[in-house]
């Protein structure tokens, strides 16, 4: 079964032969199409990218940036906070991303049921968190998670539980961070996955149910294989998002307590903007780029087999 039928647009990928035929013949206008974007990229980002890379090999000596070779990168290797921030990111990648993708899948599955009423209202309710402005997000979570009198602890109190120190305890602070990221982005991913589900032809479900397949077997044999590219998309974007995590932990905990919720990008922001050490901040940034590159590559390799077969 090819994955082509997944797309919602009626078009089908052109056969390889047709592509090859089409491409060499038209060469005149390619830069007319790609040109504006290319010019904008080169114009606006060639210098900043180069400058930040260069900066990662410098250090401030009495206010003057001085070339120091790989010194900043070596410093990173011996920086416990940097390693801790990477560890935190790893934890998020292992726990938060899969948790969110699974929740989003379940949610998408429910929202895709034809018997469900008010489907667009449900969808918007779940999508809402991802459109919240950061400043409101920060306020709201502080009120929810306050140790004393916060809404969550009040509800726990009604259930007879002890109040939890959500933001000041290293373990609970991580839990809070995971919960708040999941809160913000599950609906967003569910909406994307839902689109994938809707593109699976109804006949296939009917055929499966005639064969007597239960929901789990239907999922394993029909839904999962066809949803693979969408899941890949969600996990790649979530992985990049996690590796660049900044907003959520900045507003919730500023990376604390004891760096339990520190992430590399928040750390480099602090190094650069609080401590004015831009050389080291750039070195961390490029280390993050390297990690994202490797992880994205691996994910495509791992999940993207179907893609390769298709091409």
């Amino acid at each position, binding site marked *: 079964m090819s994955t082509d039928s997944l797309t919602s647009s009626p078009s089908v990928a052109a056969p390889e032969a047709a592509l090859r035929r089409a491409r060499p013949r038209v060469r005149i206008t390619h830069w*007319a199409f790609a040109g504006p974007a290319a010019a904008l990229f080169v114009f606006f980002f060639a210098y900043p990218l180069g*400058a930040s890379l260069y900066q990662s090999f410098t250090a401030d000596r*009495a206010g003057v940036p001085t070339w120091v070779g790989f010194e900043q990168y070596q410093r990173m290797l011996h920086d416990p906070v940097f390693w801790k921030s990477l560890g935190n990111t790893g934890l998020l990648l292992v726990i938060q991303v899969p948790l969110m993708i699974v929740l989003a899948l379940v949610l998408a599955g429910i929202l895709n049921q034809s018997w469900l009423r008010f489907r667009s209202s449900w969808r918007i309710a779940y999508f809402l968190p991802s459109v919240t402005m950061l400043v409101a997000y920060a306020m709201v979570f502080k009120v929810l998670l306050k140790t004393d009198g916060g809404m969550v602890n009040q509800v726990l109190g009604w259930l007879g539980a002890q109040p939890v120190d959500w*933001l000041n305890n290293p373990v609970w602070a991580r839990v809070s961070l995971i919960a708040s990221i999941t809160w913000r982005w599950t609906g967003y991913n569910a909406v994307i996955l839902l689109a994938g589900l809707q593109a699976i032809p109804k006949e296939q479900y009917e055929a499966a149910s005639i064969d007597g397949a239960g929901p789990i077997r239907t999922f394993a044999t029909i839904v999962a294989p066809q949803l693979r590219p969408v899941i890949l998309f969600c996990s790649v974007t979530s992985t990049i998002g996690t590796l660049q995590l900044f907003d959520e932990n900045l507003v919730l905990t500023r990376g*604390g307590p004891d760096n339990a919720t520190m992430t590399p990008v928040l750390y480099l922001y602090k190094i650069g903007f609080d401590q004015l050490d831009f050389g080291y901040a750039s070195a961390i940034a490029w280390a993050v780029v390297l990690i994202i590159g490797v992880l994205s590559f691996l994910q495509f390799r791992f999940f993207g087999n179907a893609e390769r077969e298709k091409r």
Partner: protein
Amino acid sequence: MSTGRTRRSVLLAGIVALTTVTALAAGGCATGGTAAKPAPAVSTQDQVGGTVTVWSWDVAAKALKRLAPEFEKQHPGVKIDVVDIGYDNAYDKITVGLKSGSGLPDILQVEGPKMQSYLSSFPNGFYDLTALAGKDKGDFNAAAWRTGTDDSGKVFALPWDIGPCGLFYRTDVFKDAGVDPASIKTWDDYVAAGEQIKAKTGKKLLVIDPTKDSTFPTLLQQQGQRFFVDGKVAVNTPRAVKAMTVLKTLADKGLVDYEKGWDALVAATKDGKVATTPTAVWWSGTLSSEMAELKDKFAVAPLPAFEPGGTQTSNDGGSLLSISAQTKNSATAAAFMRFVLTDTGNQVSMLKNEGLFPAYMPALSDSYVTGPQDYYGGQTAFKTFADLAKSIPPVEYTGDNSKAADIIDQATAGVMQGGKDPKAALDSAAQQIASATGRQIVPGS
């Protein structure tokens, strides 16, 4: 036909892009190398005129907006443009401007510790005001003045407001608990009073946010130091251990209400969970605006001392005005700064309207400052702070203050909530700060 034209224009765009990038790269190197050039000094000869832009925030921006028309009236042809850039991200904006060498306005509001860090990283980012304002030194609070000068004593910023610290306390709670505020002379007395209050009323003594604590550095400054002394790490000196031990005692005796964030600190006080707040004078503005219903229930006393007869105050907060080296109108900027900061009437009006407590000392003998304050049941609360302000010990910050503060916050949380030993926690913090900053630790600690 159309394709040929497109091709040419794309080529052109590419060339433009490339040359711009090269030019910018060259420009970047040039701005990076400005360190050799000395900071410019304000000329007192230049004509006053044109537009002056000021970046400020919150009530301070309001104050400037209120005063600007008066200055414009006195100096026809001058336009003062005050921009409220918000507090939370003000330094992102200023830092980017300093680092890139462009985009800054004429006048910048900066807080004391941040000014010290900017002066160490961007020694040429600000105008040298020594010739212009050096003679005013005697009129300003000495501790605040120190935050606007570099280590050689050159002046780069003029003090605006200061945060002399005192002890705000609930008179009704003290009465209920049978504690006489006048009996609190030392921190030991304070702890004893706290135990009595807790036993009699069930209330805690003070609120602390251990993840972003300002009490420990305040207790340090009370003893005449912050995190560094003579450029060396000084967070495990005997004085520092004393300060941390006070916090540990308060924590161990269950006298501390832990909260997170500004709103929670305010809420805890508003709800009467705590009997005292040892903090700076600007807390007064929060009390009167957010807790109008608690009028007549607060009073102010000096901070408890470390030993009988010792210093009974410290400093927390306060900002300065500086002139950016990027300005083209330093003379007018300087004139406006003097108009705002070295004028008793304007300074008093900013205390009255916006709650900014002046670092300009002549303003502190104004009858508004020395007179009774309605919110405090007629107590002369501002006079208490004005008297305390004189004895704020000047301290050194260095450019590594915020690096040290992060590490210290963890030590504080470890001691107060993690049960760690003050000396051990501070020793380890000192090691961390030393290795993060490449500085030595003060010998004998």
